[in-house]
């Protein structure tokens, strides 16, 4: 068996019977289906406004709250899968049994990619299934804006998944890591709210912090010009500043940079610290 095959098999054995993982994925799947159902029922009754609830328009109806919270679920799942290995001392035992620390890390990256794929596939399958059931006329799978939206959702998954990965590797306890992840989410949002009130220039810079980037990556207005126009028209009416977003490529580059940074720091931590 190749080294990759061996690491994959080990992670599959570990994940297969981990209830916490299946519960997290199950809750996310439940939310996804529950969120899509009202739109589907409306479409079946011939009601509803806006674009038809079918491919390719369906994605803005699927990848919306709370489904766009999927990345947070992935971060939590990653912590649940990774951090207890330190408390149970099974990471230590895996190394004693013959894995290098680096191999153990790669195994966890494989688990992360598999989980990311699962959290990515759930809304995609749900969207396609809803489109098949919906009486609205179906078109192509996705056009450029929808593809960007789907890719952005995947990137948001990778972003929060790697935050969970990093916290698990550094904190080494699932409860504490989960707490810090949620605390960080709150603190960053509070910080940006306060700073944006005092200094608009700094606000633009803070927009590139992980949580703000995640917010951008999961907003419909970032992908669909008609959504942006509608939102800005309402904001103009209410005397609010108009929404502006950085270039897609800049957001993607920052998000990928964070993913690489978090995985890199987790690797160095894993390699340097004793088990």
């Amino acid at each position, binding site marked *: *068996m190749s080294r990759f095959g*061996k690491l994959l*098999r*080990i992670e599959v*054995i*570990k994940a297969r*019977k*981990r*209830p916490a993982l299946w519960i997290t994925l199950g809750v996310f799947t439940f939310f996804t289906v529950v969120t899509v159902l009202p739109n589907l029922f409306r479409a079946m009754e011939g009601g509803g406004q806006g674009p038809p609830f079918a491919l390719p328009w369906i994605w803005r109806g699927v990848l919306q709250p709370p489904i766009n919270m999927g990345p947070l679920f992935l971060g939590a799942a990653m912590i649940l899968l990774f951090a207890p290995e330190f408390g*149970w*001392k*099974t990471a*230590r*035992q*895996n*190394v*004693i*049994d*013959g*894995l*290098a*620390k680096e191999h153990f890390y790669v195994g966890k990256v494989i688990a992360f990619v598999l989980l990311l794929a699962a959290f990515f596939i759930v809304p995609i399958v749900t969207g396609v299934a809803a489109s098949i059931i919906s009486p609205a006329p179906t078109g192509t799978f996705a056009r450029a804006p929808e593809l960007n939206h789907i890719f952005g959702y995947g990137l948001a998954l990778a972003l929060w998944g790697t935050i969970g990965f990093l916290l698990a590797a550094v904190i080494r306890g699932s409860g504490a890591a989960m707490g810090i992840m949620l605390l960080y989410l709150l603190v960053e949002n509070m910080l940006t709210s306060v700073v944006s009130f005092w200094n608009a220039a700094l606000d633009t810079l803070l927009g590139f912090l992980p949580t703000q980037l995640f917010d951008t990556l999961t907003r419909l207005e970032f992908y669909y010009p008609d959504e942006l126009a509608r939102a800005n028209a309402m904001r103009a009416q209410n005397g609010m500043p108009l929404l502006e977003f950085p270039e897609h490529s800049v957001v993607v580059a920052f998000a990928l940079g964070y993913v690489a940074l978090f995985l890199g720091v987790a690797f160095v931590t894993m390699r*340097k610290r*004793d*088990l």
Partner: protein
Amino acid sequence: MTDTPVVRTLDLTKRFREVLAVDQVSISVERGQVFGFLGPNGSGKTTTIGMLMGIITPTRGGFSLFGASDAKGHLAARARVGATLETPNFYPYMSGRDNLKVAATIKGVGNDRINECLEIVGLAGRGRHRFRTYSLGMKQRLALAATMLNDPELVILDEPANGLDPQGMKEVRDIIRILADRGKTIFLSSHLLWEVERMCTHVAIVRKGRVVKSGTVAEIVSEQVKALVRVQDPGALEAALADYPEATGVQATDEGTVVTLASDDLGALNRYLAGHGIYVSHLSRHQQTLEDAFIELTKGDFGSMTEIAS
């Protein structure tokens, strides 16, 4: 031709901030030895084994496993080792069998070996049950099964009898004996000295991170001549021995007074005491145990010796 030592450490040192956990440990374990690594809790035994197993990075010094002394060589050599550290470390939500599957996949051995090992440690009937439902004895036995999966040449066991009842200890001892009889090299860390004395051919005694003595069990325990003396008035005995030139040490014990002698002549001691009006009710050569040697070598380091002596 001499064999390469299975384990050799040279000035192996580990410092955790201000705590020097392992201090220039140099030991050598030869093929086929049952090597006891002795010391009280916190003396650096587990840290030393952790460094050998690649989970703790040494601060200074180095070691070789089967002659390999670099990181790549250590990794390859670990394929020839079966080890368990401190408590048995397994996934609590998985069955014993699934836990062994993880270890077997890492070690590159097939599932048939899992059945064999479960059979050897007497867990074949409980293999499908979750690890968290196991008693401590069963957990220790599962750990032993995991160490045996790859039919290792070197078995490293850290406190394998920890927390076990006498029956469990006997079972673990029997398994270790089976392994030793099969010619495996065994590196056994323990603070249960009578346990080690029964099983080991060689020992190293570690104190505050340093090896204070090493050699065969016979070498460790028989270097000094001791006499066990019982008299009516131990105080008078001690006063008389203060002037006896052959007596290099006197220690009152529950059994009587143990006198360390410079020569092997117990008759001379008897004559000397009689000459001073002290008539003994018992005089015999006192066979030093590993426990006696250990306590002497680590004298003054510990508040309570109950754990070590028990």
